C-alpha cells in the first residue's frame, strides 16, 4: 500500500502533446484520426515453445493462445498476445491485469523450472491508434513495408523513418502503432507530418467493452496504479 501523502501520477510517453485537450469525436471525413492509448500494461514474454508446459501455462494464465506463427496476434477481451520473435512475445493488457498475469507466469515458470520469463515494459512502450480512410497511405509515406498486405489479426515489426515500430491490424477500421517511449515524440511528429495532406485530427478514444485493446483503457484506479 502507498505511504500516506504520496499521490503518484502517471505521464504517458505522448503526455507532453496534451492530446486529450484537442481530442474530438471521430467523424467520417477524409481526415486521419489518431490518438494514444495511454497507460496500458506491456510485458515481454520470453520462452521456449519446445519446453512442455510453457504454452499451456501462458494460455491458462492469460486465456490467450500462444501464437506460433510469425506476426500472429491472439486476442481476447482481456488483451492481446503477439508473436515478435521465435522465443519472444508481447503481452498487452490493462495494467493491473498485466501485473497479475506476469506475477502468475513468473511464479509458474519458476515452479516448473522453465527457461522462460516476463519482462515488464509498461513504462517503455505505448500505443497509438491510427484510423481514417487514408491511414494505410500515411504509413506508406513513412515506411518501406507493404502495409496494405498486413492480414487481420497480424502485426508487423518494421521501421517508420528511423524508428522501429510494430503495426498491429485487428480490424479494417484502423491500425495500432506500437513504439518505444523515447521515440514517441519523433514517431508522433512523423505521423502528424505525413498525415498533413489529408488533414490530421486527434480523436477521443474510450474504453470499448470487449475490444482487445480499447477495453484495456479503463483508467486504472489509484490503488491499481501502485501495482
Amino acid at each position: 500500500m502507498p505511504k500516506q501523502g504520496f499521490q503518484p501520477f502517471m505521464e504517458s510517453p505522448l503526455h507532453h502533446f496534451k492530446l486529450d485537450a484537442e481530442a474530438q469525436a471521430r467523424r467520417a471525413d477524409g481526415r486521419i484520426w489518431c490518438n494514444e492509448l495511454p497507460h496500458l500494461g506491456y510485458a515481454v514474454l520470453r520462452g521456449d515453445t519446445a519446453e512442455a508446459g510453457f504454452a499451456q501455462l501462458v494460455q491458462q494464465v492469460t486465456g490467450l493462445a500462444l501464437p506460433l506463427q510469425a506476426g500472429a496476434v491472439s486476442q481476447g477481451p482481456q488483451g492481446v498476445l503477439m508473436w515478435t520473435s521465435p522465443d519472444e512475445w508481447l503481452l498487452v493488457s490493462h495494467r493491473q491485469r498485466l501485473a497479475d498475469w506476469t506475477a502468475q507466469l513468473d511464479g509458474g515458470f519458476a515452479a516448473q523450472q522453465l527457461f522462460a520469463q516476463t519482462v515488464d515494459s509498461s513504462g517503455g512502450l505505448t500505443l497509438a491508434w491510427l484510423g481514417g480512410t487514408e491511414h494505410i497511405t500515411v504509413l506508406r509515406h513513412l515506411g518501406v513495408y507493404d502495409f496494405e498486405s498486413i492480414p487481420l489479426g497480424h502485426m508487423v515489426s518494421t521501421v517508420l523513418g528511423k524508428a522501429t515500430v510494430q503495426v498491429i491490424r485487428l480490424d479494417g477500421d484502423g491500425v495500432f502503432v506500437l513504439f518505444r517511449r523515447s521515440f514517441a515524440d519523433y514517431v508522433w511528429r512523423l505521423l502528424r507530418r505525413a498525415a498533413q495532406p489529408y488533414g490530421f485530427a486527434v480523436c477521443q478514444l474510450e474504453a470499448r467493452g470487449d475490444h482487445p485493446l480499447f477495453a484495456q483503457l479503463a483508467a486504472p484506479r489509484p490503488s491499481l496504479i501502485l501495482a
Partner: protein
Amino acid sequence: MLVITCPYCQEAREEEEFSYAGEAYIARPAVPEEADDATWGDYVFHRKNPRGWHWEQWQHVAGCRKVFAVKRHTVTYEIAGSWTLADGKALYLKEQA
C-alpha cells in the same frame, strides 16, 4: 534496395529493416591463447571479401532481432537464399568441402 528474406519472420523485407553483420562462419580459435599473433590477427581482421558469392550475416534489427545467414553475390547483389545460422552452416560447410 536489397530485399532480404528473414528465415524467422518468413517474409521478404526491405534492406532498411536489417543491419549487415559481416562475413558468416568465421571460426573463433577454440583456445585463443594457443593461437600465435598472426593467427589471431587473421581471425580478428582478415576477411575473404570475395568478388562473387559471399556468405554473410544480417540481423533483423527492426524485426525479430535474429541474426541469420545470407548467401549473396557481391557483384550482381543476387541473393541465393537465407537460412538460420545453423541451417546455413551445413550448406556452407558442404560448399567449402
